[in-house]
Structures are given as structure tokens and as C-alpha cells.
């Protein structure tokens, strides 16, 4: 399934032409919940998990969580994580390890007198499809398509880190984009709102990491997209909080994923 085509731009223009920024009086609630951001991979590395709290301030900063006891178990072996002394809220495994497919991993977090748990299992991964670029002027590029939006056979997340600091030394000479392949089709995926244009010069270095998503993590990612990248178009879904596998009342997601990584120079 293709996503937004030029014909739909007409409609989007119609809608977007009457779009404006406003101040909104949020009805916020101060009940901070634990947020877990954990994507462990099959790379033999010091895996890391980020813990934070939810917050009530629009564009606020997520409070980090320290003092938590974090561990991951595959049922036979436990992998303790320790809090980073340099990066607040980051917990790294004491030893490097790689997640295995067909193995169920369990996350355990002890924090503030409460035990949080989550489970996840990695699924197989297909090769990374080639990235299609689109020229912008004579010297610049943008990513036209990095992955098929739909596949019956696999669900995946593609993280592409783009670096052209060697061409234009500046902090702004880096970008990170995400692309997704899902086994679901949504109306507001097909007809998306206008997206920020990420343009980089030819010769930029791209590091692409593909994460294979199991069905639960894919459902989380789909919900995240419905609330973020696909929201604000023509066919918005009713809004709801994202699902989470962090029990009993945590937020975020604990996922274990098979990955592929590729590096290329954009030409």
C-alpha cells in the first residue's frame, strides 16, 4: 500500500490552509507514572534501558528515575543493569549480551517500593531493503522510501541516523528518522499530515538499523504513530493512551528485537 500521493495533497492543502497554532489550556493531572524505554537487541553489546517519569507540562522535560533495581532474565540467566553515572535515567547491563530469538525475556524493575515487570520475545528478521532517495535541487537528497509501509510477513522499525558533519561541521548536520513496516493498514496512515522535510547533502553517511517487531511491540508502535506521525491529517482516529506491557501501571515498552545494521553514503 502506498501512502500519501500527490492527488491527496489537494485535500491536505485544503485542510492545512486553515491550520494555525493556538494556545491550549490542558486539563493536566499530576500523577507521574514510570516510563520504560527498552529495546534490547541481538547485538552483543551493553544493552541499555531508559527510565523516566511522565509529566504534566506541555513540552516539559521527563524527570529521570534513579535508584531503581533493573534486571532482565531469559529464564535461565539474569542480566543485571546498573545506573549510568553520566547519563541520568539510563541503566546499562553489567555485561554485554545479545537477545536470542524464540526466548522469552522478562524485565524486572524495583523502584519506589513497587515491582514492575514486562515480557517480550524476539522474532525473525528479513534483510534491509534499499533506501530510495529523491533529489532536492542538485546537491541535496531526501529519503523517498526506506521501507514498504505494509507487509504481511514482517513488521519492522527502521532507524536511520544521517550524518553530514564531515561536510558541514555543525550540530544541525545530523538527523534521525524512523520508518516502519506494519501488517496493518490505517486510513490516516494512507493519508498522512504533512511531514517535516529532512534534507541532507549528497555524501552524507547513513547508518540504518532495522528492528524486527513482534506483534505486541508492533501494536505499540502503530498506536504511537496514530498518536504522533499520523495524527493531524484528514482521518484522525479517536485518541487514547498507548498500550504498554509494563505491569502493573507503567508506561512505555519493553521489547527485544532482532536487528540488522547497514551503513551507506547517500549519493
Amino acid at each position, binding site marked *: 500500500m*502506498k501512502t500519501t*500521493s*500527490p*492527488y*491527496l495533497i*489537494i485535500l491536505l492543502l485544503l*485542510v*492545512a490552509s*486553515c*491550520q*494555525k*497554532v*493556538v494556545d*491550549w489550556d*490542558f*486539563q*493536566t*493531572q499530576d*500523577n507521574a*507514572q514510570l*516510563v520504560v*524505554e527498552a529495546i534490547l537487541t541481538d547485538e552483543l553489546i551493553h544493552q541499555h534501558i531508559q527510565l523516566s517519569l*511522565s509529566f*504534566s*507540562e*506541555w*513540552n516539559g522535560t*521527563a524527570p529521570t528515575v534513579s535508584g531503581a533495581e533493573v534486571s532482565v532474565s531469559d529464564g535461565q540467566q539474569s542480566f543485571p543493569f546498573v545506573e549510568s553515572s553520566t547519563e541520568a535515567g539510563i541503566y546499562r547491563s553489567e555485561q554485554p549480551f545479545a537477545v536470542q530469538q524464540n526466548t522469552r525475556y522478562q524485565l524486572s524493575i524495583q523502584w519506589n517500593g513497587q515491582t514492575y515487570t514486562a515480557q517480550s520475545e524476539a522474532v525473525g528478521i528479513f534483510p534491509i531493503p534499499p533506501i530510495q532517495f529523491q533529489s532536492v535541487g542538485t546537491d541535496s537528497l531526501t529519503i523517498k522510501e526506506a521501507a514498504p509501509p*505494509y507487509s*504481511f510477513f514482517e513488521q519492522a522499525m527502521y532507524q536511520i541516523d544521517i550524518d553530514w558533519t564531515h561536510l558541514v561541521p555543525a550540530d544541525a548536520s545530523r*538527523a*534521525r528518522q*524512523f520508518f516502519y513496516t506494519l501488517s*496493518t*493498514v*490505517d*486510513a490516516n496512515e*494512507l493519508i498522512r*499530515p*504533512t*511531514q517535516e*522535510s*529532512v534534507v541532507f547533502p549528497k555524501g552524507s553517511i547513513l547508518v540504518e538499523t532495522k528492528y524486527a517487531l513482534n506483534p505486541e511491540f508492533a501494536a505499540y508502535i*502503530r498506536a*504511537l504513530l496514530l*498518536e*504522533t*506521525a499520523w*495524527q*493531524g491529517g*484528514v482521518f*484522525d*482516529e479517536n*485518541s*487514547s*493512551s*498507548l*498500550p504498554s506491557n509494563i505491569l502493573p501501571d507503567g*508506561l*512505555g515498552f519493553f521489547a527485544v528485537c532482532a536487528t540488522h545494521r547497514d551503513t551507506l553514503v547517500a549519493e
Partner: protein
Amino acid sequence: MRKPFVVPFIVGFLFFLSGNGVFAQNITIQEAKISVKGVLQEISRQSGTNFSYNPEAINTDQRISFYVKNASLKETLDALSRQAPIDWVLVENQIVLTYSERQPDPEFFTISGFLTDHTSGESLPGASVFVRALSRGTSTNAFGFYSLLLPKGRHFVEYSYIGFDSKKLSMDLEKDQKQNMSLDQISLALPDVLVKTPTSDLLNKKQLGAMHINPGELRNMPEFAGESGLIKSLESLPGLKLHSDGSAFFFARGGEKDQNLIIIDDAPIYNPAHLFGFYSIVIPEFTKSIQVYKNDMPVSLGDRLSSVIDIRTKDGNLNHFEYGGSFNPLLFRLSLEGPIEKEKSSFFVSLRQSNFRWLYGTAFPNADLYFNDFSVKWNYLFSDKSRLFFTLFRATDVLADNASNAGINWGNLALTLRWNYLFNPKLFSNTILSSSSYLYELKGGGNKWSSGIANITLKTNFTYYISDRWTSHFGAELHGYYFNPGQVSTSLPSTLIPSAAATLSRKSVLYGNAHYRLPGKWQLNAGLRLPVWDNLAPATYFTFDENYQLQDTVVIDSGLYQQYVNLDPRLSLSYQPDSTSSFKLSYGQYHQYMQLISNSESPFTSLEVWLPSSPTIQPQRAQQWSLGYLKYFPEAKVDFRAELYYKKMDHQIDYEAHANTLVNPLLEGELRFGQTRSYGLELFVKKDFGKWYGWASYTYSRTLRQTPDVNGGREYPAFHDRPHDVSVLLNYEPHPRWTLSAFWTAYTGSAFSSPTGFYTFNGQQIPLYGEKNNDRLPNYNRLDLSLRYALNKNPDNKYKHNLTFSIYNALAHENVVAVNFNKILDDNAQPVVQANFIGTQNLVTTQIDLIRFFPSLTYRFEWNAKKEKS
């Protein structure tokens, strides 16, 4: 006091006599004017019976109308007793007549016929037929037929219809009489909705619970982009709420958007919108009458929970040719009507086509964006008793990129073949064979997703005017349905996309209704509708456990695998204290067997999936109680309505958070089922006459939903819960050539969910939500203006044309349809969705409104061979 045993004794005695005595005679008397004495002589002659009576006590010179045919003596004497103050008793084979103090029952006859427009021959539905002296009247049915039972004698019958000159007819009613009547339209110099001074019988034409929209009233309303339409006009009525600008969705008394049945000549229309909702597919020029029911729906119409919009189309001029049309920069429309065989057969044909290319052609040369609709009506009058109608309606929308062969298209098709037959002056039948379909297609990248719904219906409906007090409607329906909830086909190799299987269903309905005028000022209306819904094999369906996880896959090869039988009673009691006011208390139960599956609150018609009731989806049910009051003020020429209602709906469809409703065979597992309750007070005041005319409405209402697995099972306001809703339409006619119209509407903003907290994941700020629909969009407020100028100095010209200048949302109020919390500002300060997740970029809140200020200029013309006056 009469002894109980006397009655059976007499009956037995009479039975004995009837077998071998004087009562077995066959007596025939057919006299329009005959004295009582003459009747007695004739009876004696034919039966050999002798009469004994006191000539001073019985007035045998009284003249009566007397009709009996092959009647027994008893039947003949009973008939005589009903018409003259005479009692009779059998004594030794002799009839003894005595004076009766009771008043003889008046003899009644039926006057019946069709009301038509004198110029065009169009039937006039909802016209009034009234006898002022008796305060007795009726309205024509949807096909212009009326039947009125009146006592024998001389009567002045008044025929009236809005926009037409009334006519009075004096008649001596001596027997059943057929009386067709044609009315002349009032002077063309007057606006469409004006009529001459209204009479108090106006009340007879107004029903509480139902609203009649005159197409002429639609034409006078300020327009969006030069087009007036049905859906936009509904927002001016109390209890009906449009989704927002650019939407064809509407909500009736708290019901959902799929709970409204729109029928064109009895064929349902599943999507009444063009261009995602900016235009109505039903144009006033094609419509003859529009009846809107929000409660107390007729048993012959259903099965939707919340409203029925019954649209009757024009038949076509039986006498003369007419054409008309309109042009504006975005649209053109043409229509032609006329006789095929004068006063026997006529046709109406109309075509409308959009013209948007000049808006986008340069920027998007490969794009196609257009819509069109095409309507045909044909009818043939076989005799005064028999008439055949055919209606075809087709509407198409296309939004495509020809370069990539990608795009969206959708279309409605409705066909109706209808036969009206008048068995006798008291029995009218309407038999319909109709078919409708709605298809939606999305294609791109070698794939095509299509969904659709189609039905074929055979229906016959009878109206039986039993007596002056009783009128009955009854009939039967048989419907076949085809549902395609989403099939995907692909030309790409190694692509596999799951499809939701198409299904077949059948609905059989029996219904009956009786309207009874009780003694005094009360009227009772009672009806029953018995729908039987069957799902037919071959089919595959899924069952789910209490956690909505797939439990079983059931494959049915043949037969019927699911049946729902329901009995829907309708009951109303009216009280009419005088000729200008009435009260009505009503109760109705309704079931609905098909639903539009969409977890979107978008104003636009998106990728649509219709599903039938199934083992998982129980039929939706609504019960509604309402109390209405209608008052007509003859002096002020104003009528006022107030209605109070309470409505409870069960098995209402809700959705799992982020439900996956497209291309999902397990779609039913994403659904949740709960209840909705709504209540409200609706006020409506209307002035049809004078230089200033128009109407105003105000509604206070609440709509609250409760679903066990949504919002923690707590009650929450529905999206369309808008407590306050007000609208005013004013027309001003300072001069016959100028019409100024203003329409203003305002209502509480819709309920939606706004974030109550946030967290970060993958470098993005993710919203957290608390109570569902905790927040509201800004209040809606819109003023539309239009100015129409007739270009003819002589309003009776054959060729009439005018220019209409309209401004939609003249105040340029930002009527918000959506608020989003996920965008950033790009380098051009335009809100866009974030794509680069390095660094910190503040999100902004954005709102979208659709139409702030939209002027249009439309040229309209019409030509009628007959209209010019010397």
C-alpha cells in the same frame, strides 16, 4: 336492566328465524332519495313482511338515502334504524316499529382522489383536505392520494398546500365520490415559501415528531459554494446536529452517524455526500418533499435507531416541458422535465458536474478531482387507479492521480420501480422494487482496497381508510444485503493482504399500524414492526472470548447461521384541545442491523466499512419516549413546537483503543459494546408568511455513553454531546426581485480527548489521556448570508433567471474541526509532523478549521412553457 340470558335467547331465536323464516329474504334497495315510507313499502314488496307502527310517532315522510343489496330483512331493518329514529321488533311474523329517541347514525361516504399541481401535474404530498364545519380533515399521502370519510350531505371541502392557492369545493355527498383536485401555484412574484393567509386547518398538516422540509425552503437558504443541499439544511432543525463544516455526517437526538436512514423514493443512500462531505448529493431541484423523523417513525420505515429522512423526488411535468440549471465557478447543473405522453407519462432528468480543475490543474496536471450526479425519474399513469414510477440516482466521486494510477473513488447507485394501485377509495397500495449500492475503492501501488454495501428490496405497503376514525397502514418487506467489509486485490507478486470476507444477509419485515381518532379530542396511533434478520451462508465468522481474543473460527457452508427476531412497537397518543394546538406523547422501539465501522471522528467520509449484525454484534436497539407540544398562532402566523425526549440505546458500538478496522478479518474483536442515553428539550418557532419569514430553533441536549471496557467503564460524553445548539434562518423580501437571507447557527463545541500528561519515547513526546472526551472543541458559530436578485422584471416570464451571491461563514469564525498536539513548526513556520528526532523541538498545538469565509456567485435559470401570462 337487561337480563344476561335474554341476549343469547334472542340471538338463538333470530338464528332460528334466519334459517326458515322472514329474515332469509334478499332485499335490494338502491335509492339516493327515498322516504321512510317508501323504504317500508319496498321492504314489504320484496319480503312480504307487514309493518305495524303508530303514524303519529314515526315520521315516515323523512327522506333518506338508502342502499342495501341482497340483504336479509334483519340487515335491512338495522340499516333503516341507523338512518331514521326507528326501532323494530318482530311480533308474530309482523314487524312492529316504534320511535327511537336515539339519533340515527349519520351515513358516511368516502371522498377520495389525488391532489396535483395544476401546471405540472406533480402530485402534492402532505397537502391538506379539510371540512371546516366538521373540523375534519386529512392529508395526502406521499403520492398525493387522500381519502376522507364524511357524513352524507352538503360539504365545503378545502384543498390547500403550501405555496399553492387553496381551493374550496362544494359537494353533495350522496355516495362514495372520487374527487381529484389540482391546485395553482401562487403568483410567481412571491417567494417560494409564501402562501396566502394560512387557515387554522394548518394544524392538520403538522405532525409532532416529524418535520417537513419544503424544497423551496432549501433554495432560499444561504448556500455553500453556490449549492444548497439537504444535509446542510438539516442543521437548522432542532435535534439534528451536523458533524462540522465539510461534513455530511449528522447526529439525531444523540444517535450515531450511521443511525440515520436516508431514502430517495424508498431506496437507501449510504453516503449522502460529495467531496468528503462538502456537498450534499441530494439537490432541491430533484426533490418534491422531504420528511424528517426523529421519533415516532412510521412502522413502514426502518430499521435505523435515530432518524429517517424520507425524500420524494419530482415526477416530472405531465403537461409542459421545463428546463433549468445553474452555473458557478465550481459547479454546473442542468435539468429537464416534461411529458412523454401528455397527462399520462412524464420524465425528469438532471445532471450535476463539478469543475475544480482550474483550481489545481496547473499545480497537479495529473490529478483528477471531480464529482457528478445523475438523476432520472419516469412515470406512467395507466389509469386513475394505477401508476408506475421509475427512479434512478447515481452519484460518483473521484480523487485520483492518473500518473501513478492511484486514488480514491466512491459512488452511490439507487434504483426504484414503484407501482401505486388504488383498489378502491379506501385501499391504497404502494409496491416497490428497489436496489441500492455504495462502493468505495482505494487504489495505489498496484493494490486496490474496496468495500461496499448493496441491497435489493421488495416492499408492498397498504393504506386502508377503514372508517372516519380508523386508518391503517400495513405491509411486508423483503430485503437482501451484500456486505463487503474490505477486499484487497493486488497486482504485485508476493504481496499478501488479508481480506475481510463478504457476507450476505436477509431481512424480512411485517408491519402494521392503526391510527384511531378516539371520542373527544384524543387520537391514538399504535403500530408494530416485526423485522427478522438472517445471516446467510456460505460464511466464516469468528468468536471471541471475554478478553476479545480469538476463540474459534466457524465455517458455515450453507443455510442460515444467525437469526434475530425483534418486535418493535410504536405508540403515540395525541390530544388536540383546539384547532391550533396539540400535545403528543409517544414511545417507540427500534432495532438496527447494520453499522458503519469507524473509529474516526473525522468530518470526512473516510474508508468505510459496513458490517451486519452477527453472532458478535447484536442488533442495536433504541427506545425513545417523547412529549411534544405544537401551537399555531393564527394572528401572528407563527407556529411553535416544543419537544422533550429521552432515548436509551443498547448494544452501541464502541472501539478498543487504536482499533484496527481496515483490512482486518478479526475486526469484530476490536469492537466494544455499551449503552448511550440522551435526553433533551427542543424548541422551534416558524413564521412562513410576510415580508419577513423564517424559523429559529434551540436545543438543550445531552448524550452520554457507557461501555464496560472503555474509559474504565465510566460514563463519558459522546463526541456529539453538545448541550446548547441554536440556529436562526431569516428571509427578507423588500421587493419582489430581491431576497435577502441570513442563517446563523451556534453550538457548544464537540467533546474530544485532550492530553492530561506526557512522556517521552524514542525522542518523541507522547500524549497521555485521562477521562475519554474530557475536553471540548471551541464553540461553533457561523453566519451565512445570501442575496438573490431576479433578473426578470416580469416574474411570470417563461424564462426566469436570477443571480445569487452567498457568503458562507461571513464572520470568518474559525470553526474548529480538530485540535492536534503533535506538530512542530518548520523553517517556514508551518505546522508539520516531526520527522527528525535529533535535538529538542517544541511541539505546538494546532487547530484546523475548514471554511472561514467563502463567497460564491451563482447564476440560475429556468424555463417553463406554461408560466408566461399575458
